[in-house]
């Protein structure tokens, strides 16, 4: 780092200007004027056989250019993890909203009319909509031939409707529980919740005369979506180029192919550009979102607060299709929370039902197990008469601990977050008003051990003839400022101004591979890749300068757009001169590749294999006021302490935490997809209640910086964790305020009133 370092500076996101002007093109904003409009016909039933389908009338309607069904696709299954899906339902439908056909027509009205003209004869079969019944022997099968689903790497439960199951254990829970002074037991429940992006899913596809398809999609996983579309439609990857458009929010909605195979298929059929925008209603039945979950938990501790044992069971309703990446083991391990627990026995189940498919929503699978353990730890602390932060401090995970999945955690900043909450609560003092109190809860994320394989991404940095630079990366920007950060990293390594870096991003034909912008991994992992590419460009510049200045590379420095001799700084050459000179040089135009420094990185990672380098821990505190008559909960103040490793751009970090907390507030207090026998009853933004500006409390925060080894300048991920403990923090605050324990999310007034009645 130099005196003029950009690291830690709150640079304004360069995309903000166009967005403020209304110029940014999202999804179908860039569709050509003559694009056909696509619409999807969806199943009205949760479970039914398709007896007969007739599309002839729709085909004959003037203005209809194509109607497609399962017959127009290869007979293959695909999926994000297990390959359980087809583009259109073949013999039966498994959920309300499953696509059965699609049309492309000259305008929306015609497309709508065509859908009405398709006749489908269904025979309804009994549906199964909760995992308990789905696991019972003799339950109707959602997937009859689950065992045949690829890929072979997938570990399947294989019994009835159980897709996946796991057991993680250590020590002797039975014996340990018998030795505990306090044992608390409780079941918890949480509903399906929606990502609720303001832009619905949108995509445009067009085919040129050679048969090459270009797909514009608001996705964060360009390469994964390309792969899926190619698999689903039998296309070689060379025939499909996916260009990512601006995204109107992601939160897990845009990590997997949702509408893309349909749009591409229609473009191939019609040889015309085709655009598809999902309606808000379809967002609720035609995408996938947070899984409802059931947690049973038992926690035992000694008098002094030492945790001895946790027994838990985590059952996930994955709906009709599994749009998740399948990390059941680490997800189940969340049940012990960020604590040292010598004895545990944890079971996890993923079960198919005839509900709408489940997938990822901000911090997938973390908030619910954390809601359970953080509520129960709080109850144990209360039983022991112990301060809840004290209790957590006593058991907090520390550097070098082995966590339940068997990995060793390093660079752990958890204790500091607890101490920050403690200090904040001390400063605030206990609320004096009746029915008011603070509640606390801790959270964790990214407890993934370092794999021996390196990051699944690459990047290039080109240096222009005038000394400015272009970064070529597969990273998509959902709005969190990922592109700004990536450019900031390049500018820092090359010691050039931030606005001297431009960026080409997320285009499967043009940019190198990138796994996805998600999981709070972009800054940590893609940022590392980008740093490698910039460092390679820097090396090439130094070596060229060394030739020209006749100074050994090791004696050269780079700053302020120049390479100079450290001994005699007046001996220097500008990056502009080097960029220009490189064109015909022996090494060629300067083009740094992340693959150049990769071997060293991978060696270091192999050494660190099995450790968790960038684990993220946080602790939240919420002050609530509860109306004991109505059960209304008002969040008055909110405080977050989070270990971010290193805040590369503090303002962006702050923005992620504020947005994440408010996202969590929705899940804590109001959000639930209301499902009845597989039907969604509140598929709109009025009845599905996301937080609005008037419902948000002031949010304060303390950032802890416990640097990671591999993240750029020590950075860790930021965006997922702030959503994780919110439900528990508020539930615990409610308990401290009025003595009522609500164990089902969201914490609605009627549940609070009920819990008040059940008070011992």
């Amino acid at each position, binding site marked *: 780092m130099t005196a003029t370092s950009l690291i830690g500076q709150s640079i304004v996101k360069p995309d903000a200007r166009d967005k403020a002007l*209304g110029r940014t093109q999202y999804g179908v904003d860039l569709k050509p004027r003559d694009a056909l409009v696509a619409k999807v016909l969806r199943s009205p039933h949760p479970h039914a056989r398709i007896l007969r389908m007739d599309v002839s009338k729709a085909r004959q309607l003037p203005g209809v250019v194509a109607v497609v069904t399962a017959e127009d696709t290869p007979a293959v299954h695909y999926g994000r993890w297990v390959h359980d899906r087809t583009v259109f339902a073949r013999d039966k439908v498994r959920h309300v909203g499953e696509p059965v056909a699609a049309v492309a027509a000259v305008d929306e009205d015609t497309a709508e009319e065509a859908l009405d003209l398709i006749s489908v004869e269904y025979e309804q079969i009994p549906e199964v909509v909760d995992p308990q019944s789905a696991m019972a022997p003799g339950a109707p099968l959602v997937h009859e031939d689950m065992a045949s689903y690829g890929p072979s790497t997938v570990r399947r439960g294989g019994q009835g409707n159980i897709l996946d199951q796991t057991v993680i254990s250590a020590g002797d829970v039975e014996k340990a529980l018998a030795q505990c002074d306090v044992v608390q037991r409780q079941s918890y429940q949480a509903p399906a919740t929606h990502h609720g992006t303001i832009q619905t899913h949108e995509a445009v596809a067009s085919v040129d005369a050679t048969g090459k398809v270009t797909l514009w999609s608001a996705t964060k996983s360009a390469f994964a979506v390309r792969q899926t579309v190619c698999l689903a439609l039998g296309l070689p990857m060379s025939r499909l180029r996916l260009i990512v458009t601006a995204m109107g929010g992601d939160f897990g909605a845009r990590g997997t192919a949702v509408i893309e195979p349909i749009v591409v298929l229609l473009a191939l059929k019609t040889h015309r550009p085709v655009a598809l925008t999902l309606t*808000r209603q379809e967002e609720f039945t035609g995408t996938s979102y947070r899984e409802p979950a059931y947690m049973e938990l038992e926690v035992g501790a000694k008098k002094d607060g030492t945790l001895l044992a946790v027994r838990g069971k985590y059952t996930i309703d994955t709906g009709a299709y599994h749009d998740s990446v399948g990390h059941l083991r680490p997800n189940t391990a969340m049940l012990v929370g960020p604590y040292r627990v010598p004895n545990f026995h944890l079971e996890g189940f993923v079960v198919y039902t005839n509900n709408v498919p489940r997938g990822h929503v901000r911090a997938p699978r973390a908030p619910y197990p954390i809601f359970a353990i953080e509520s129960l730890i709080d109850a144990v602390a209360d039983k022991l008469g112990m301060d809840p932060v004290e209790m957590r401090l006593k058991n907090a995970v520390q550097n070098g601990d082995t966590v339940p999945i068997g990995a060793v955690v390093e660079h752990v900043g958890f204790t500091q977050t607890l101490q920050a909450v403690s200090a904040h609560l001390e400063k605030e003092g206990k609320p004096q008003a009746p029915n008011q109190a603070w509640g606390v809860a801790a959270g964790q994320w990214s407890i993934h051990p370092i794999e021996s394989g390196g990051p699944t991404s690459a990047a290039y940095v080109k240096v222009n003839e005038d000394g400015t630079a272009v970064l070529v990366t597969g990273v998509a920007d959902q709005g969190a400022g990922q592109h700004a950060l990536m450019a900031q990293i390049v500018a820092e390594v090359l010691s050039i101004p931030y606005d001297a870096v431009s960026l080409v991003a997320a285009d499967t034909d043009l940019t190198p591979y990138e796994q996805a912008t998600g999981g709070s991994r972009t800054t940590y992992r893609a940022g590392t890749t980008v740093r490698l590419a910039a460092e390679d460009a820097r090396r090439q510049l130094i070596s060229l300068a060394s030739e020209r200045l006749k100074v050994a590379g090791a004696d050269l420095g780079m700053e302020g757009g120049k390479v100079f001799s450290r001994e005699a700084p007046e001996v220097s050459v500008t990056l502009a001169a080097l960029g220009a000179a490189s064109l015909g040089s022996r090494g060629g135009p300067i083009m740094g590749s992340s693959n150049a420094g990769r071997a060293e990185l991978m060696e270091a990672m192999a050494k660190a294999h099995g450790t968790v380098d960038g684990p993220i821990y946080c602790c939240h505190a919420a002050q609530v006021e509860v109306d004991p008559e109505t059960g209304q909960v008002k969040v008055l103040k909110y405080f977050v302490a989070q270990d971010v490793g290193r805040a590369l751009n503090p303002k962006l970090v702050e923005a992620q935490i504020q947005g994440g907390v408010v996202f969590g507030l929705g899940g804590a207090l109001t959000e639930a997809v209301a499902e009845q026998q597989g039907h969604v009853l509140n598929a709109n933004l009025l009845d599905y209640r996301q937080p609005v500006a008037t419902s948000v409390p002031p949010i304060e925060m303390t950032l802890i910086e416990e640097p990671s080894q591999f993240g750029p300048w020590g950075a860790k991920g930021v965006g997922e964790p702030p959503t994780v403990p919110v439900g528990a923090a508020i539930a615990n605050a409610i308990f401290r305020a009025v003595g009522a324990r609500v164990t089902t999310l969201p914490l609605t007034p009627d549940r609070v009133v009920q819990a008040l009645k059940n008070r011992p």
Partner: protein
Amino acid sequence: MKQLISLKVNGTTHEVAVEPYWTLLNVIRDHLGLTGTKRGCDSGDCGACTVIMNGKPVNSCLVLAVDARDRDILTIEGLAQDGKLHPLQEAFIEKGGIQCGYCTPGMIMMAKALLDENPRPTEAQVRQAIAGNLCRCTGYVKIVEAILAASEAMTPAKP
């Protein structure tokens, strides 16, 4: 049956043939090509489609195009003057009130309507005014800061 209407958008008058059931949002986006105005729900629940019509903020997805005939309509594209950003636009950028930006046009138009009527709103009034505009990214914190900063910049507090 289509009818020919004239729509005055951002100072320019357009003649458009519209079906009686088409919304103003449809016409602005699909026929005039002004895609800055966003669609989030098509049912009046998200505020992404907010435009200003005769000085009042409206959800353009709830207004029939025929009812907007001869009215004065301002969309996000008409806010900057001669390349100079409106103070609200400046403040949203500076304060970090923009993440994905999908709610931004509607949010800014709603805020403009507020400041036109009440140049020095309190924080609570700002929150009230934008309570019908959903943002999923920011938690509203920096949006509220931005609107208050723009208000301050446009109408400095009297000493």
